[in-house]
């Protein structure tokens, strides 16, 4: 059993590693795209909200960038995972591997990219003159939380698409909606209390909010506001794992 788990992890890591290398050879700028892509969406949001809507949030660029980096990690991973099993029909007909390997490799790929861009977030934070604080000690916990939420959602979506291919398109719409419901370009804390409570049911919104309060204001996260996110990520994980495990040997039969 132990050697089985070891092989499983090895395969996830090796697949992720291969994917990262292959991807880099597909473009001229290669690994540079890991930071160019989020920076480009930062520019778009910044121009739109600073110069068209005249947003006056302090450190607005950094405020935006934190939201963008976290949202992109979640949305990018889930969207790619959704087609990870359905896009591997050839392979899963030939060898038996546990199908959770497909979304998990996508998560690993994007986790590496996320870590790099997150480092960039920290550097920018220090460059604009906000010093590190003890609250940084809570960052690994928050990263773990968004990681678990992403793993759960990715496994659910990966399990649905093979049976229901239209889901991929529906998911695009959901992710688009999530841009507006996650407080990427506004502060949830400024809304009416009932609206705040509703938006914090979205784990991504709650997590982005706490990341900002740590990085921008040096405040410890407010656990109470993370409770829905914790519960939902737990549910996602359980449902995602059960779905993939239940249909593990059914996926190769769908054609």
């Amino acid at each position, binding site marked *: 059993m132990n050697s089985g788990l070891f*092989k499983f992890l*090895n*395969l996830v890591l090796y697949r992720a590693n*291969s994917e990262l290398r292959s991807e880099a050879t597909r473009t001229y700028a290669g690994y540079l795209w890991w930071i160019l892509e989020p920076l480009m969406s930062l520019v778009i949001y910044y121009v739109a909200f600073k110069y068209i809507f005249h947003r006056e949030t302090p450190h607005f660029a950094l405020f935006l960038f934190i939201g963008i980096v976290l949202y992109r990690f979640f949305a990018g991973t889930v969207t790619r995972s959704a087609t990870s099993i359905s896009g591997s029909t050839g*392979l899963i007909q030939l060898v038996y591997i546990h199908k959770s390997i497909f979304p998990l490799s996508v998560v690993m790929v994007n986790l590496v990219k996320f870590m790099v861009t997150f480092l960039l977030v920290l550097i920018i934070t220090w460059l604009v003159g906000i010093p590190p604080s003890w609250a940084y000690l809570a960052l690994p916990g928050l990263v773990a939380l968004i990681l678990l939420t992403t793993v759960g959602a990715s496994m659910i979506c990966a399990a649905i698409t093979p049976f229901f291919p239209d889901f991929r398109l529906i998911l695009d719409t959901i992710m688009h909606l999530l841009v507006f419901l996650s407080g990427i370009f506004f502060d949830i804390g400024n809304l009416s209390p009932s609206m705040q409570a509703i938006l914090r049911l979205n784990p991504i919104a709650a997590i982005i909010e706490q990341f900002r309060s740590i990085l921008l204001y040096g405040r410890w996260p407010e656990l109470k506001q993370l409770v829905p996110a914790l519960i939902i990520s737990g549910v996602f994980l359980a449902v995602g794992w059960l779905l993939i495990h239940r249909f593990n040997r059914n996926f*190769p039969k769908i054609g």
Partner: protein
Amino acid sequence: MKGVAFDLKNVGVCYRKAASLPWKANKFWALHDISFQVHRGETLGVIGRNGAGKSTLLKVLADIIRPDKGSIDRAALTVTMLSLGAGFAPRLTGRKNIFLCGLLLGMDKQHISKRVDDIIALADIGDFIDEPIRHYSSGMRARLGFSIAYYVNTDIILIDEALATGDQAFKEKASGLIKEKIKSDHTVVLVTHSMNLVKDLCDRVIHIENGHSLPELPVEKSIERHLM
């Protein structure tokens, strides 16, 4: 006989079409009723027309899919379907693909590291091993795939017409190696259209028609029935 490797009873497998409406007929039974046993150490041939369900049967044996009816009992043995170049990443070097493909076939990393030079030697692709495999000819790719599969350590080997790879010289070398493996005490299930191969290599033969296994006959008789 050293015990039973597989025991299939009335196995049926049903495929579903994706994106079909639930109230439309979207089921297709590839296997209806298959019963046979595979004993340890023997070489079993599987014959039948195209579309009879031979490949589906191999997938059931490889535990890639589960039967929708009937049952299969399996001994606690490792089973590998010899699939050539499963999961190759075209932008990575041959060397990296040896690891990727080896891990997919269930080898562990140390075993691959130990075998990597043998694999490269058998594939006979020289310096190209450190080039991305999208620059390979299809023959080179097939040779690399075969060489990786050849070094998988497994109790039971499932072969789906995998003997035909690469150019004539390599084909002969490959089928020689496969025959050696088959003649050793490995348990082998061989799906093939070549009756000569069946006559040469198989201890027993299963004949499948339209998803049903026909009553078992001795190898010679079974081939006659198939050719009728």
